[in-house]
């Protein structure tokens, strides 16, 4: 079946090449049948890549180790669900996932715009198929997922244990969906520039896709942060890793784009901003994809082995040069139709918001690519770490949160000072009360965190005031009871109130980040059974060791051969304080394929992975990780003896003896203990953001749309009659 998979890739490449030609020919000659044929090429590409993906997925699920990617990243002992997700754990499989998702989302975008933007859509189709051709070419010529080995190995290497975690199954598809959806506004933006049609039509056509890209990217970033926190064993959720940053940058410019496209829709302003942000977001998405495959930066996310740096650099160069040329050459057509009426207006707040978001993106871009730039200029590699990022991003993040509270309080076009004073009063009072409360509680020694809490309180006050006043206005107009008025208000104004909810989510998220960063207590130390350690407001006592053996019975159900851990008792205050939780962190030891480790050694000689245990709550998390001393003399002797005396089929007996010895004579283990406040607010805030985004993007039911249109039309006509 590998032959079928490769044939699909070749067919996909041919379809892309044909589609590009047909689309451009159709647009240039005014022959719609060719433009339509080009669009259908994208549908065909989606179908062919679905077939290719299915071939690879079946190979993984059926343990067909003749496929090199299956042999390299899966095994019979890899649990079934992780085997299904292992498709995208390799360079080759992830390229196929990227191309497939791009073809699906592009097909949807082109289908929904098939009767609109004819002159733009043709160019957009060609550009989208161009991306398809690029990624399929990478697979055909550089990283073929369907390469086989004969005879097939009896067993595979297994999935990297670090990836055997539920959020890791969904994180890449979400992130790649975000990246590939970012390409849609880029393609339509370039199409609008090429077709010289730069009114709001193309913006309206791709608005939902931009929103979807933002949602998927954001969800993917959050899932990655959750994986880092709950799996990697270092206790953090964001390390300013290069690939983390690469996913955050297009999300930041995408956020700016979502805000400023509202202004172009309403006022025909910020056209240069919008088209530049659309092109930048798509380009940054490609750069993010480039980072993990180029080998230029060190990251836990990077795919090892073959580097695809050169083709990506060429593509990125073309995108940047092409974008600059198109924007500069069309600058006359990108002039705003109106000017800013007033600095005290929502438009000017959105503009300030754009500047801050782009500034944040620039800071992160500089810090991420600085090693490359430094090496190019000086010949020495340098890097910047989390302290550098924190120094420049925190002030910008504070400004961002504060601006997100101001926006809802100010009207479009212009606001009067008197009205502004009235609207700012309550939210500022809430922020000030928060400051007083925190100062009294002793928060003065963390000024940045306190400032963030006050900004967040300002946002919550501002949005809360909007909901209250909006509901009151609705009640006055329609005579409804408050709950019904609130629902009707949100139904009729989804974009506005969905956006407000997203702002609340961001405020909650930033409170979680500020609190967990600034008020965390952490300790790393060695403990033996019976010993205790104090961490923050809690005491952690090592009760007894734990051990489980064989893939089917490991504590975290991830296919490890042996899992060594500890039962921990957590109490509030001292050792005799109220019981809080019982935790069981462990370290999983996985099999390796290295025969030099011996029959017993190879059963546990693969990568060791920490399985974190935590008690998570709304006010704080108690987080624990263990590193058992598997090199302790007594345990090492068992492995060495087993290697000398046991054949492979009996080697697991020694693992059982090792586990028993560990339970009876546990060596001192290293523990990492953390008491971290409000971490849960990060995940909750993220969910609120996603919820708000979904409300904003959700289409109104068509009946409501028709009623609203008829009523609005009647009002408009009456207004003209009055005039």
């Amino acid at each position, binding site marked *: 079946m590998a032959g079928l998979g490769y044939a699909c890739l070749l*067919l996909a490449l041919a379809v892309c090449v044909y589609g590009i030609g047909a689309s451009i020919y159709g647009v240039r000659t005014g022959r*719609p049948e060719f433009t339509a*044929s080009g669009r259908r090429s994208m549908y065909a590409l989606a179908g062919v890549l679905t077939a290719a993906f299915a071939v690879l997925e079946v190979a993984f699920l059926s343990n067909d180790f003749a496929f090199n990617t299956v042999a390299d990243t899966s095994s019979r002992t890899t649990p079934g669900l992780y085997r299904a997700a292992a498709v995208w754990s390799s360079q080759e499989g992830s390229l196929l996932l990227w191309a497939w998702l791009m073809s699906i989302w592009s097909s949807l975008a082109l289908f929904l715009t098939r009767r609109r933007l004819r002159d733009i859509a043709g160019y957009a189709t060609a550009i989208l198929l161009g991306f398809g051709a690029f990624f399929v070419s990478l697979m055909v010529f550089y990283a073929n997922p369907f390469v086989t080995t004969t005879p097939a190995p009896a067993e595979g290497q297994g999935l990297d244990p670090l990836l055997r975690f539920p959020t890791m199954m969904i994180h890449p598809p979400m992130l790649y969906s975000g990246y590939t959806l970012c390409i849609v506004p880029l393609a339509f933006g370039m199409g609008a520039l090429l077709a010289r049609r730069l009114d709001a039509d193309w913006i309206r056509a791709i608005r939902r896709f931009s929103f979807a890209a933002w949602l998927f990217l954001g969800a993917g970033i959050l899932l990655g942060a959750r994986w880092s926190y709950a799996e990697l064993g270092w206790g953090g959720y964001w390390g300013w890793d290069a690939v983390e940053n690469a996913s955050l940058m297009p999300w930041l410019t995408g956020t700016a784009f979502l805000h400023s496209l509202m202004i172009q829709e309403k006022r025909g302003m910020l056209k240069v901003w919008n088209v530049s942000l659309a092109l930048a977001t798509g380009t940054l998405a490609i750069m993010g994809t480039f980072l993990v495959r180029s080998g230029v930066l060190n990251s836990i996310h990077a795919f090892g082995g073959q580097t695809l740096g050169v083709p990506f650099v060429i593509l990125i160069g073309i995108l940047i040069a092409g974008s600059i040329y198109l924007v500069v050459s069309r600058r006359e057509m990108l002039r705003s139709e109106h000017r800013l009426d007033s600095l005290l207006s929502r438009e000017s707040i959105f503009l300030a918001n754009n500047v801050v978001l782009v500034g944040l993106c620039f800071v992160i871009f500089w810090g991420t690519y600085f090693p490359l730039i430094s090496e190019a200029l000086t010949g020495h590699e340098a890097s910047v770490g989390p302290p550098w990022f924190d120094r420049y991003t925190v002030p910008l993040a504070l400004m961002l949160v504060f601006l997100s509270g101001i926006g809802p309080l100010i009207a479009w076009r212009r606001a009067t000072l008197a009205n502004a004073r009235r609207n700012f009063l309550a939210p500022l009072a809430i922020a000030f009360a928060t400051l007083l409360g925190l100062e009294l509680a002793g928060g003065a020694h963390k000024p940045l965190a306190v400032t963030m809490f006050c900004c967040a309180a300002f946002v919550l006050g501002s949005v809360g005031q909007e909901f209250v*006043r*909006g509901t009151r206005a609705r009640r006055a107009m329609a005579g409804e009871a408050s709950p019904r008025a609130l629902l009707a208000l949100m139904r009729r*104004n989804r974009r506005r109130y969905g956006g407000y909810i997203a702002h609340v989510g961001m405020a909650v998220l930033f409170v979680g980040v500020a609190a967990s960063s600034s008020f965390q207590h952490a300790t790393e130390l060695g403990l033996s059974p019976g010993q205790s350690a104090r961490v923050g407001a809690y005491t952690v006592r090592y009760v007894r060791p734990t051990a489980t053996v064989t893939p089917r019975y490991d504590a975290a159900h991830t296919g490890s051969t042996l899992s060594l851990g500890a039962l921990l008792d957590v109490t509030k205050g001292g050792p005799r304080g109220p019981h809080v939780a019982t935790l069981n962190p462990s370290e999983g030891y996985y099999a390796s394929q290295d025969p030099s480790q011996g029959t017993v050694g190879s059963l546990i000689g693969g990568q060791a992975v920490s399985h974190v245990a935590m008690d998570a709550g709304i006010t704080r998390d108690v987080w624990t990780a263990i590193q058992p001393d598997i090199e302790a003399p007594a345990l090492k002797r068992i492995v060495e003896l087993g290697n000398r005396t046991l054949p492979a089929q009996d080697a697991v007996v020694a693992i059982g003896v090792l586990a028993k010895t560990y339970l009876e004579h546990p060596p001192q283990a290293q523990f990492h203990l953390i008491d971290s406040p409000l971490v849960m607010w990060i995940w909750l805030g993220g969910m609120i953001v996603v919820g708000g985004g979904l409300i904003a993007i959700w289409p109104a039911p068509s009946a409501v749309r028709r009623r609203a249109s008829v009523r609005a039309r009647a009002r408009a*006509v009456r207004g003209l009659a009055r005039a």
Partner: protein
Amino acid sequence: MGLLIVLLTLLLVGAVVVVVSAPLRAARAGAPELSSSGGDHAAGPLQLERLEQLEAAREAKYRELRDLELDFRTGKLSRADYEATDAQLRAEAIAILDRLDRVQAGEASLRTRGA
């Protein structure tokens, strides 16, 4: 197995050719919406696109009017500013509705001539 792969590949190629060539075959058969021969038939899809653009612009203008009223009722605008902007937006809405009426009338006459 080799024969099966060849057959499946040929099936895929056939399906792709059918899907991708459908508009070209339809145009050759004289389907009006895909005709590039110009005239009244070619104007149909363009009319539809213009109609959809104007309807989208109309919805956007109605949304602006709703936003403006909500801004006023939630105390963000003075009455004077509200009334001035409201009148301006209504005039813009009427202009869009007039253009929409003209396009719809043009579309109706095309249909009548076609019939």
